[in-house]
């Protein structure tokens, strides 16, 4: 897929001297879902804000579909929709009016059919005459998404879309995002919910202290960096790990009620029989055995801690 966003040498230093972004180089492909992960203050929102035109860059270039966001700002902003992190909404306006306003602001003529489609997609159609003030937090979040989609963007930025959102709405939003991807929209989302990235993203970028520390295909990343763990649930908790089991590579977890054995599934073939024989020799009885794979969250936390 050709790139739709190309960022090179992008830096941002605020007047206070705080360096929010340091020499960012990143390419986003057309039609992909890209998840940008990072702890608070890592620079995720600053990066999005620069691409959207809300924050000015210090150095570097940002191209959107071949257009520089500086001189070509009209074309680049026309392509971009933004769902901000905070619930910034004109609360005294009606839902339908506010969504239509955004469409006009982007220079597009009235299109009632499109507005209806967007509002229905987000289960807002029956609220179109309601004042935004009267909506719940979750519904307000939907209005933000509707406003971002009002001008039919080709790139959609979702800045922490699930912040303060219940599970049902989160799943609804994921469905909307999937539909948009089907329609060819490129999605860039920042999130604290690793499960969101794990569920939806094609590629994952990790940003920490203003630097991109990793960009990888999600599956490749999980295969490359993912570890597996064999868990043996004990019938009776142990006070200490027997030396022989420690020598085999076991660790004692869950307050002594679980033996765990971590291994790299790509490099090491697990010999379950050998491990269980070791447990039997130590005269330890167990009630259950399970394996678990490390999640994107584990990988992310591992990377950020480095």
């Amino acid at each position: 897929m050709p790139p739709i966003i190309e960022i090179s040498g992008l830096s941002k230093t605020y007047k206070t001297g705080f360096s929010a972004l340091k020499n960012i180089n990143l390419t986003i492909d057309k039609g992909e879902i890209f998840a940008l992960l990072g702890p608070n203050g890592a620079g995720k929102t600053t990066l999005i804000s620069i691409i959207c035109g809300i924050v000015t860059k210090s150095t570097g270039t940002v191209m959107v579909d071949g257009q520089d966001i500086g001189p070509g700002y009209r074309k680049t902003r026309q392509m971009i929709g933004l769902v901000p992190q905070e619930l910034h909404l004109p609360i005294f306006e009606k839902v339908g009016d506010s969504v239509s306003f955004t469409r006009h602001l982007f220079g597009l003529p009235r299109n009632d059919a499109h507005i209806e489609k967007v509002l229905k997609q987000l289960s807002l159609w029956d609220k179109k005459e309601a004042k935004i003030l009267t909506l719940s937090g979750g519904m307000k979040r939907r209005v933000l998404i509707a406003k971002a989609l009002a001008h039919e963007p080709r790139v959609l930025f979702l800045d922490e879309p699930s912040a303060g959102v219940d599970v049902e709405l989160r799943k609804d939003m994921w469905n909307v995002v999937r539909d948009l991807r089907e329609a060819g929209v490129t999605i860039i989302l920042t999130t604290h919910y690793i499960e969101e990235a794990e569920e939806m993203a094609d590629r994952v970028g990790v940003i920490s202290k203003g630097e991109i520390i990793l960009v990888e295909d999600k599956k490749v990343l999980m295969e490359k960096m993912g570890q597996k763990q064999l868990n043996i649930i004990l019938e009776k908790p142990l006070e200490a790990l027997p030396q022989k089991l420690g020598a085999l590579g076991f660790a004692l977890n869950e307050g002594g009620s679980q033996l765990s054995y971590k291994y790299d599934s790509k490099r090491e073939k697990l010999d379950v029989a050998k491990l269980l024989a070791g447990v039997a020799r130590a005269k330890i009885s167990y009630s259950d055995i399970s394996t678990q794979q490390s999640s994107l969250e584990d990988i992310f936390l591992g990377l950020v801690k480095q």
Partner: protein
Amino acid sequence: MNWRGAFAIFDYEMKRFFRTITQSIISPVISTTLYFVVFGAAIGARITQIDGVAYGSYIVPGMIMLALLGQSIANASFGIYFPRFSGTIYEYLSAPISAFEMVLGFVGAAAVKSLLIGLIILATSYLFVPVTIMHPFWMITFLVLTAITFSMFGFIIGLWADGFEKLQIIPILIVTPLTFLGGSFYSIKVLPPFWQSVSYLNPVVYLISGFRWSFYEVADVSRDVALGMTAVFMVLCLSGVWWIFQTGYRLKS
């Protein structure tokens, strides 16, 4: 040129005005009536004429200017300040809309709103005193130029302010006193020479004087000087707005 975007802002601001129609229109009408009662009836009984014009009629241009300046500043400053305060400014900044188009929308709406109020006050005045407009073209010219200029000034205040208190401070502490001392209700010729000289430093004197001339052909300064000073203030405000958008002052970090 994103005309639709500029019009969307204009339309949004106008709808906000009409949504608060009672506050927007009834309030200036009541104020005008009170001014007529206080200044026209009470003071007018002692000052029958100024420059050959009945006092009640003489104060009409000053009253219109008083409302026009206040409303232009209030409408424009609130128009841009509220999106900053509520955070919805992101929507304007991320839209394919230029600084000029944004100013056109916000300032245009503020100017039209204050013009409407000015015309309503003029209409109300007809109920109390005889009003003559000898130069309608110049009356409209001064009205429009002042509305645009002070709406731009209000726009700058709305960007500068970082709280509701600051939003009010310039209109209350500077603009209203300058308007009252700018000959809204008297001719500065009645002042002692020293205070006359001081009054000429007040830019509002020129606005009111030029505007009053268009009604009765009486003025404290000539029409051309008044027009020139209005233009100077307009250029200053334009420069301020241009600088703000060049630097992103209070808009972009």
